[in-house]
């Protein structure tokens, strides 16, 4: 009993020691699954194992990955955020509308905000929707599942209303209007790496630091692990709760910007069911849906497992119906592997601090 909980507790501890391979291997299953996927598909297809394909796949993973990071924060708190897919769609549509210009009747003019303003406004919208989720959950005591389910519908409905079901195309902007550059996010590269991957990496690193090195991170882990104990230790439990939903909304907004930028268009149905993929990534990454356990690193691995798998299936020409079946099987299998691994462990392992991590970053 003790050994099981011990192992679990250790695996779930925030990533104190940075990104080191030894612990990564130990943490296991998502990493192993990723390696298996890469190896299998590299054998099956000569195209799969190449830098360009990895970059393509990664930039697709970026969307889910961004959502999954926000989802992780909410799940660490013991909640769930079903609205992220809709918020992604809504934010994309709002960004598209802003790029297309805002009609101001009083002046009889059309206002074209610059791209930075579009980005700021869209992120603020994501935070606002997240704040609604948070307030419903923290103050009005609506169960997270129900609150975010409702917001999921409302956000999607608003996106459809705004566009009347249509899609904004051509978001490049116009040099004459001074609002070019929106497609930079989704289409440009920095030192050969797509910007979307850079964005994901930055968000992941910042969130990782937030979780492991700030008081807020500790508050989040403690209030997700035992909210009553955290509260009596002086943790502002409600503030933490609202903040995680806001951060999740912001992550969804970033994902919405990246997606509409890459597609150079913004549709009201973008991101439908993405919330489920994000939850799957978090779960494959080893987080507990009951809260208090999970890492950014695990969640990133989970997102890559899903992305690399579906891409591989596409490359070897498996039908999209079978892809769905495989993805579902992998989710269950990855989580199953974990419980077998921990359940079968009876030996008391040495304390994590006893062995120095082999590969610290400089």
């Amino acid at each position, binding site marked *: 009993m003790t050994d099981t*909980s011990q192992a679990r*507790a250790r695996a779930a501890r925030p990533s104190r020691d940075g990104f080191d391979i030894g612990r990564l291997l130990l943490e296991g299953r998502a990493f192993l699954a990723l390696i298996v996927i890469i190896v299998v598909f590299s054998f099956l297809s000569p195209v799969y194992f190449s830098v360009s394909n990895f970059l393509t796949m990664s930039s697709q993973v970026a969307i889910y990955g961004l959502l999954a990071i926000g989802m992780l924060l909410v799940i660490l708190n013991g909640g769930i955020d079903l609205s992220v897919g809709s918020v992604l769609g809504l934010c994309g549509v709002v960004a598209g509308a802003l790029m297309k210009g805002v009609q101001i009747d009083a002046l009889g003019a059309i206002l074209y905000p610059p791209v930075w303003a579009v980005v700021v406004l869209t992120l603020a919208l994501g935070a606002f929707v997240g704040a609604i989720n948070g307030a419903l959950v923290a103050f009005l005591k609506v169960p997270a599942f129900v609150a975010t389910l409702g917001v999921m519908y409302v956000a999607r409905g608003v996106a459809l209303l705004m566009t009347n079901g249509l899609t904004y195309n051509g978001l490049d902007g116009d040099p004459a209007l001074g609002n070019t550059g929106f497609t930079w996010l989704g289409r440009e590269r920095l030192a050969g790496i797509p910007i979307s991957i850079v964005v994901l990496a930055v968000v992941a690193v910042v969130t990782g630091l937030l979780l492991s090195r700030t008081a807020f991170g500790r508050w989040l882990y403690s209030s997700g692990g035992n909210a009553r104990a955290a509260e009596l230790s002086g943790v502002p439990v409600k503030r933490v709760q609202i903040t995680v939903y806001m951060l999740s909304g912001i992550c969804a907004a970033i994902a919405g910007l990246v997606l509409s930028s890459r597609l150079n268009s913004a549709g009201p149905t973008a991101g439908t069911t993405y919330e489920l993929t994000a939850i799957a990534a978090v779960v494959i990454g080893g987080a507990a849906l009951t809260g208090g356990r999970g890492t950014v690193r695990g969640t990133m691995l989970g997102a890559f497992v899903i992305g690399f798998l579906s891409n591989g299936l596409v490359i070897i020409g498996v039908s999209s119906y079978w892809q769905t079946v495989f993805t579902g099987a992998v989710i269950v299998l990855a989580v199953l592997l974990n419980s077998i691994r921990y359940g079968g462990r009876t030996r008391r392992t040495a304390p994590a601090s006893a062995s120095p991590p082999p590969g610290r970053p400089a």
Partner: protein
Amino acid sequence: MTQVELSRSGAARGTFQLGETVLEARNVAKSFGAVHALKGVNFEVRRGQVTTLFGENGAGKSTLMKILSGVIQPTSGEILLDGEPVRFASASDAQARGISIIHQELSLAPNLSVRDNIFMGREILGPLGVDFAEEARQTRVLMEDLEEDIDPLTPVEELRLGQQQIVEIARALSVNSRILIMDEPTSALSASEVDVLFKVIRDLKARGVAIVYISHHLEEALTITDHAVVLRDGAMTAYAKRKDIDLEWIVRHMVGENFDLGSPPTGYAMGEVALSIEEVSVPDASGADLVDRLSLQVRAGEIVCLYGLMGAGRTELLEAVAGRLALNHGRVLMEGQDVSRLSIGERIRRGLVLVPEDRQRDGLVQTMSVGENLSLASIMDFTQGLFTSRAKERTVIEEGIRQTQIKSGGGGAPIGSLSGGNQQKVVIGKMLATRPRVILLDEPSRGIDVGAKAEVFRLLAEGARRGLAVIYSTSEVNECLSVAHRILVMRKGRITAEFGPDVPKERIMAASGESMLH
């Protein structure tokens, strides 16, 4: 009417010989790991009579009752039922043989109705599935017997605590029990409800049901019992028939002559008033006052013991002072400043902390390590700018482990790997790490062994010498005498008596009870 219905609804049949032993424990011992909860106890239950088990918290009463009712198995010794050795595989096995138990903690499903709770797991089946009408009829009969006006279809969560206890009792009565074990059945009952219960007990006795009774209300128990058995530290210290004993005899054997955990720290001057509670009232969900216009003051360096029975309102008072529960009257002053409107976190920063009663539920985060638990309340002390300082956190953790003498595999060990006593030290250490000036401890010695208890006392004495003001809430009178400069007895939300450190135990216990010395 009552007689007829009750005998229809169960109880023993046929003739019986009064006072014949029906259930017997012989040399029964039970260990939980290294803790010896029972050390070879002999115990007899007699037909048609009440046997009361007296003893302080942790004396082993509940353990013995759980063994007799099949909830747990003894480590050694044997159980005889009607003179035959038996082994109960489970509680339902024991129930099938006519032994049922009313647990101290209510075991009702709050979302279900009274009827469904009473027949839970024993539903009466008719041709069309469960015969709800018959269940409701029997429930109504039981409620009449217990003189309680409760509709069978009322959800249990809508009943007040005392009525829930009545339902629990009705459930035990509805089973055909020859032996009925009652573990603190009256702790939430009003005086009139207790009278009704006692009438029911007399009816049951008259029909040959053997009853085992446990209560902290000594006087109350004396009015109903035929035999008295006293347990102390897992061993039986005395047995007598009711007619041969009085209250003083029980208390003497319960407390023991020479049990000492030390004495309150002396030899230093106390400071100013650190914490002042003024006319504080705390309501329960229905608006009734659990704490009723209570006032008290604690000076820096003083250890005040808050003694009382379960349900006296001690937990509610401390949680309200710490900021978890809202006051509906009065205020709390910390070194002269009103903190009644501050959040828990702000009160902690002002130096007012609580070590909660239930360390698993309120004290520890099970998903975090020993170190993370220890440093949780003082994160801000080692946060520089945006980030926490690992070096400073390590200092906090090491200091905490050293100060409270936690035995663990270092700060990285999972909290679940620690013993109860060491977990309690983590909770105390976490609050001490915030460098408090007032510490409230709610039953900190519950479920920890004597050694750990002594270390907790040492910590408090050390703190007091350095000017820490302590409120120590407990239901064990020995602890009060070992640690406190001043003992306040709390009962039904009020302070009913105040004693110095040299008062006889009997007087403290009497002041907390129902009807003595008033």
